[in-house]
């Protein structure tokens, strides 16, 4: 009994660990991350250009929230002490600020076009964190999603395709061969564990965002009585167009309110199965498209739509790009690597099937043993019945006699 329990637990944990490893450490192609790099880089660039449009007003010594005060909002002076830190709290020189911001814009531009991405993407993330902690009080959802995407992209070789790096790699490899430094700095277009981890982290982070966004809404009244979408659309400071006509369509806005509420809460569960994924992602496009078009947040809406692409399977991306080769592999090394990944995947599946087969065999044996036991019991009962019938027959014969 104890041995059996131990065996069941061992099998469970072995399978759980294998599942964990498969989920996190299966190599992924970088194509999707490269697309996200370009989109995210463009948005980050736009955001930095907006800061630059009034740099002294946003970050200078006479900014809306001065640099010193910005630091004190984090250091416990007002009772709130967090680990947010930015060297920009001490930058008061206008020229230094411009120099810094020019560097930030150049690095972000490099990230977007895919130049030296092993360095520029982490650097773009670092600059973004510094700006985020400096600009406390002027941030919103856009800054969150852009920062998270940049953070996860910094982990992956997202510049290995659709980039200047890819072009440089081809040229340098021809001249100098594929040395270690070049291979690291200009990674080849092949599946990598880093790309897989970055993909999974962004996927899970999105699930957390939607789950808690939905739960927060569920605490309100208007998302339940259906008026939330009406109130959002008549919010003058947000709206892009006059949508007050919606007041005469209560069934429409209450439907949209409840749909949004349930979609957000169940996103975490329904985005994983292949059957429901297209519906959930389609709704994401509609909800965020609506926010972008009607609620004056084109930036936030479009970034959330872009982020949702992380759930699109690579083959579909290849089809959308009109190139099967994009995912099948464009170089002999990448094809070989792809084959290795597939073989490893088949091996894992085979091992899992064997483990299941062993379990089934064991169950069949157990059932056979039970069947045999039941048969034995039935036979014994029959035998006993026959014996008792014989005995009764003999007794009645005696009585008659």
């Amino acid at each position, binding site marked *: 009994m104890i041995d059996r329990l131990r065996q069941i637990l061992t099998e469970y944990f072995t399978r759980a660990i294998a599942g*964990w*490893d498969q989920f*996190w*450490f*299966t190599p992924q192609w970088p194509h999707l991350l490269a697309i996200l790099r370009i989109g995210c880089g463009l948005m980050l660039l*736009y955001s930095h250009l*907006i800061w630059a449009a009034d740099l002294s*007003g946003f970050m200078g010594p*006479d*900014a*809306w*929230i*001065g640099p010193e*005060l910005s630091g*004190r909002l984090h250091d416990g*002076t*007002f*009772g709130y002490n*967090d*680990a*947010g*830190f930015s060297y920009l709290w001490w930058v008061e020189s206008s020229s230094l600020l411009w120099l810094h911001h020019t560097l930030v814009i150049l690095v972000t531009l490099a990230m977007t076009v895919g130049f030296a991405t092993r360095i520029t993407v982490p650097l773009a993330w670092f600059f973004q*964190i510094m700006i*985020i902690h400096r600009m*406390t*009080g002027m*941030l*919103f*959802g*856009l800054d969150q999603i852009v*920062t*998270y995407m940049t953070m996860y992209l910094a982990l992956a070789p997202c510049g290995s395709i659709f980039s200047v790096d890819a072009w440089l790699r081809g040229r340098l490899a021809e001249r100098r061969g594929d040395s270690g430094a070049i291979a690291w700095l200009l990674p080849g277009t092949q599946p990598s564990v880093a790309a897989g981890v970055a993909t999974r*982290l962004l996927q*899970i*982070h999105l699930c*957390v965002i939607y789950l*808690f*966004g939905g*739960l*927060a*809404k569920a*605490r*309100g*009244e*208007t998302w339940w009585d259906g*008026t*939330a979408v009406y*109130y*959002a659309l*008549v*919010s*003058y*400071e947000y709206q892009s167009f006059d949508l*007050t006509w919606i*007041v005469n369509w*209560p069934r429409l806005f209450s439907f949209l309110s409840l749909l949004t509420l349930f979609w957000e809460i169940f996103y975490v569960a329904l985005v994983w199965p292949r059957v429901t994924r297209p519906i959930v992602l389609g709704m994401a496009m509609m909800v965020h498209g609506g926010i972008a078009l009607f609620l*004056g*947040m084109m*930036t936030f809406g479009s970034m959330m739509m872009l982020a949702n692409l992380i759930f699109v399977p690579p083959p579909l991306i290849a089809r959308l790009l009109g190139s099967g080769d994009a995912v099948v592999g464009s170089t002999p090394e990448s094809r070989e690597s792809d084959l290795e990944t597939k073989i*490893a995947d088949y091996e894992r599946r085979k091992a899992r099937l064997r483990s299941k087969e062993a379990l089934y065999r064991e169950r069949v044996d157990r059932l056979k043993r039970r069947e045999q036991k039941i048969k034995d019991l039935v036979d014994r009962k029959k035998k006993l019945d026959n014996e008792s019938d014989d005995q009764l027959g003999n007794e009645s014969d005696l009585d008659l006699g």
Partner: protein
Amino acid sequence: MPESRRLRFFFSFLIIGHLLAVVTAPLVVQSRGSIGAAPIVTTLMSPVQRYGEFVYVDRGYAFFAPDPGPNHLIQAAIGPAERRIEKRIPDLSTMWPRLKYHRHLMLADYFNQSYEFPLPPNLASEDAEAARQWQMRRSRYEELRKSIADHLSARHGGDPVLLARIRHNLPQFIAFQNQPIPLTDPRLYEVLPDRLPSLNIPPDQTLPAARVTTPAESVPPPSADREPSTDKQTRALFQFDLRVPAGSWTSPEAGNPERFRVLANNGYPNFQLEQNASAEGDGQAAGDGDAT
């Protein structure tokens, strides 16, 4: 896949740590009640809290939640009375592109969220710690107000600046359906006063403990039958000469009978702030308008 089991274990450890920071931050926000966040959540978050704060994953993700609410604006009167100009933050007509406008909308919202009432009378003698905490929150608001005013002053040749917090309420569904009004109708706007929620508390009366320790985050609505403010400076700064029946156009929490004069309307209501002589003279103003 990393071949080494140790390497996989190490990366798994990092991943779990990061996910802990990602999940516990909004959980803390959602589990926060009158006694603080759920102890199990704060305990889980503690090892990764500083990390989460630095990488900015310490967010609550409450977009338009729990309910879409009113927006907040900052109204600024800049310069002495004879050449005073009015500015509203944000202002779509001057702040372009939209992202720039949105940054300023967030600033006005943050300014309003940071608001804390002036220290209640006698609180320091009743509960020194509560008074210290209260004063810290109040200082935060005052520093923000000063910083915003300093910014505007620097942009306008050092002119004095008065600031007011304005709430733009959303039109109630039923009333709006029955009789639509423009979203910029002056009746939807209200000035948020800078004073304790109830003016009926005599200065020598101790405030209830619950109110002292957990102050409301926004200005509670005055009752419809309440008399307009007797605060002379406030009355002078914002002409409370109009009264709006409570709850007629604004959401229930915004039934403020106090109004301010709308002197011009060029698409937006334009609130002319009128500074009284004493505020202008010493450069200080209490009440809704604050001078620096």
